[in-house]
């Protein structure tokens, strides 16, 4: 079950500024809601998203409860070499997930 999807352009030329789009399946529970018996639902949001390109950190996001459920993030990076894009996220319950996608630069 892939909770994290990474999307990059199919064709990338060396030196291109490319858009990286992330979609993570996560409830982003705010901690302000109550269940049907009135018990508060504990907060569970993705705290940190890091994106590495061939091991080098290119983007980091600290998210809070103000980010919508199933967070969508789009940002840019310069594609220098072929290799791998790696996205790691951690939420309040300690769940960590890493997703990788190959980058091919022509």
């Amino acid at each position, binding site marked *: 079950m892939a909770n994290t999807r990474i999307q990059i352009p199919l064709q990338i030329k060396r030196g291109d500024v490319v858009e990286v789009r992330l979609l993570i399946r996560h409830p982003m529970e705010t901690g302000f809601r*109550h269940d049907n018996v009135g018990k508060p639902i504990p907060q569970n949001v993705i705290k940190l998203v890091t994106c590495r390109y061939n091991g080098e950190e290119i983007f980091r996001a600290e998210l809070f409860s103000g980010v919508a459920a199933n967070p969508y993030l789009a940002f*840019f990076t*310069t594609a220098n070499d072929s290799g791998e894009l790696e996205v790691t996220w951690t939420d309040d319950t300690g769940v960590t997930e890493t997703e990788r996608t190959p980058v091919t630069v022509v």
Partner: protein
Amino acid sequence: MNSVQNRKPDFPSRSRRAFLTSFVGTLLVPFLRVRSAFAFPDNLTPLIREATGGELPKTSHVKLTLPPIAESGNSVPLKVQVESPMTAADYVKSIHLFSEKNPRPVIAQFHLTSRSGKAEISTRIRLAGSQQVVAVAVMSDGSSWAGTADVVVIAAACGVESKDT
């Protein structure tokens, strides 16, 4: 004769126009000044100072795009664009998003590098009611800039207004 008569009724209307222009102008000038100096909601200023390291940024260089009217506050698309060459010497270090009325005013913080190529980020946020959203960009040289956007939210996201949704 005719020209004199024509000129006479002209005179009071011209002075009225001049008076109105200057009067409205005097009203507007302090308003504009106040707006640019205190553009941020009061509850956000300490958070903005914390993000920038003390100073209150000027509203320039940062373009924050949000829909003027959002039907639901649960998911509002947002785009921040910062004018920057994004070179090793001059790039955007971080972008901070703040909400005026959310129970937690800090929405997100993004950290970029000189490799980013373009300082532009899109995401989707929650908004608890109609309010102003502030984006603050901190540059590599320590300077900071801000952009604001006003959004009318028809149904607020879960939070203070509606606890059940």
